[in-house]
């Protein structure tokens, strides 16, 4: 069983939901990212989503776009991202690490090379934002052969038939995008998300994580009532932007704790 599924099972036994924070590798610097990753775990993160910087992050809102730009300005790309992950793994072999990125950097270094680096950094899952299942069959097959979970997004507009098709290829968990929009957008409609997550749950045993619009502990609390995980990204990156190096870890910790307490 994958480390991701194991984490979900353990949390379930104590009636908790997973908190999955997202940060972009190299934002604000490679050294700080490693410190931030450890801090996230200490403060209550159950898994971590690590963004691979890309020059054209089409599905992301302005906050994560800026994180990408800061990381790129520190020369952090896909290879450096995996080095950061490897460095993190030296001290932490427990917390699942999920990479989130766009197809082009992966294709540029080659899928086989990417998988080799993922294995050597002990990566647990990958979300490739612009690889819908139709365009990524061979890739997903290779991920599975390497025991890396292929995590797919489901949107408010995804039809039932399509959800069923995606479920067949997905593993680890399903990532439900809680609103029509980009990451970090306005607040979400809880009732609507609840209905959709219920619908998806009736089709699969895979855990469901909810993200894209979760910005505070109140929303997180409500969403956690009917989902298995909360993904929180832009809110943490705003904290990175608003902090200096001396208070950054503390400020991030506060957010994580306040959310972990209520889910």
């Amino acid at each position, binding site marked *: 069983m994958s480390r991701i599924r194991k984490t979900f099972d353990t949390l379930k036994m104590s009636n908790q939901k997973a908190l999955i924070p997202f940060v972009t590798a190299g934002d604000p610097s490679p050294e700080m990212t490693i410190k931030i990753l450890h801090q996230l775990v200490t403060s209550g993160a159950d898994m971590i989503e690590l963004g691979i*910087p890309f*020059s*054209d992050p089409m*599905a992301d809102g302005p906050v994560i776009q800026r994180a990408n730009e800061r990381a790129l300005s520190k020369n952090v790309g896909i290879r450096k991202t995996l080095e950061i992950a490897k460095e993190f793994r030296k001290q932490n072999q427990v917390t699942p690490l999920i990479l989130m990125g766009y197809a082009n950097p992966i*294709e540029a*270094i080659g899928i086989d090379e990417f998988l080799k680096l993922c294995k050597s950094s002990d990566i647990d899952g990958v979300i490739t934002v612009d690889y819908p299942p*139709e365009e990524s069959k061979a890739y997903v097959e290779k991920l599975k052969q390497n025991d890396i979970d292929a995590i797919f997004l489901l*949107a408010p*507009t995804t039809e039932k038939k*399509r959800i069923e098709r995606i479920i067949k290829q997905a593993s680890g968990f399903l990532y439900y995008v809680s609103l029509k929009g980009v990451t970090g957008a306005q607040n979400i409609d809880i009732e609507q998300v609840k209905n959709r997550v219920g619908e998806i749950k009736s089709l699969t045993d895979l855990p469901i994580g909810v993200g894209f619009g979760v910005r505070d502990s109140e929303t997180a609390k409500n969403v956690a009532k009917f989902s298995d995980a909360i993904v929180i990204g832009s809110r943490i990156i705003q904290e990175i932007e608003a902090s200096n190096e001396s208070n950054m870890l503390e400020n991030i910790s506060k957010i994580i704790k306040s959310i972990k307490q209520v889910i």
Partner: protein
Amino acid sequence: MQNYNFPDENGHFGPYGGTFVAETLIEALDELKVMYEQFKEDKDFLKEFHHDLKHFVGRPSPIYFAERLTKKIGGAQIYFKREDLNHTGAHKVNNTVGQALLAKKMGKPRVIAETGAGQHGVATATIAARLGLDCVVYMGSEDVKRQSPNVYRMKLLGAEVVPVESGSKTLKDALNEALRDWVTNVSNTFYIIGTVAGPHPYPMMVRDFNSVVGKESIVQMDELVGKQPDAVIACVGGGSNAMGIFYPYIPFENTRLIGVEAAGHGIETGKHAAPLTANSPVGVLHGNRTYMMQNDEGQIIETHSVSAGLDYPGVGPEHAWLKDTKRAEYVAINDEEALAAFHNLCRTEGIIPALETSHAIAYAEKFARDLSKDKIILVNLSGRGDKDINTVAGMAGIKI
């Protein structure tokens, strides 16, 4: 290439094209695919489309024999397909008329577009005004500065122009931002993409709407010259004017198809916008797989061309396929050569061409020189250069 039938049902041109978007856009693209398939065969839709092309755009555009230029070069006979005479001044309007009509049929009251030089933005704002649709145009903040007359034109036509501050602040970033808008407002919004790129069905749909250029040319060349050209030449940024004239000519095996990219400061300097000529690596951006200017870790790199309309790191996937299958050839012309052709055409033929188009003209001059006088070249004169006079004056150190 008698049985050329691309893309396949999933939008692939061989290994290129496809649908590389986040799940949040899949439903909108599926809807668009179904509606386009339905309306492209619909008699009433086509009647309206052709009515507007005739009465609003002013089609058919003429074919013109560039007699003085031909004499001056002293080789093959050079003909122009005069897309510069269209309403709004370029071929771009053919596509926006088609997509805006489709938006109207689909019941979408709001259209959005990306623009680089502003030509596609103006063409979109124009047809949006004509059809009573709300219109928002995304434009890189660098381009907003460089192309202020077109920004004002769009505003006059009732469009909202949103400057894009992210990334390199140019066309590719405007496209990213338009995609983000579309994801957010998908239920009431139609995204009018301006070139033969983007996720399926855009490369096919934009090509189809622009193919009126090639279809007319085939009829007109037959009437005017009594035979088809030995070569068709067009400039290629994303590649919409080139696909528009190439596509109907694909079965004409004796007609060479030549796409002219922007070599900027020179291919060897890396500061260009010619992914096909430079054999850039294949990658995935803006929803499709194609040749793409990028570094060795897949980050899209900044491009350079004197012409904002060619300043794009990728190229339409069908051009990638035509290159690989050798049905079309791709070459590049640098800034200096394009400017020389610009000035030459102004004085020799009384036509001020767009800087984009000047790349095609520059190559046509080179190409014609080595051919005998009985050979015939047709150049797609894709747009007029009124929009470029500030740029050209600025390069000569003149303030107007």
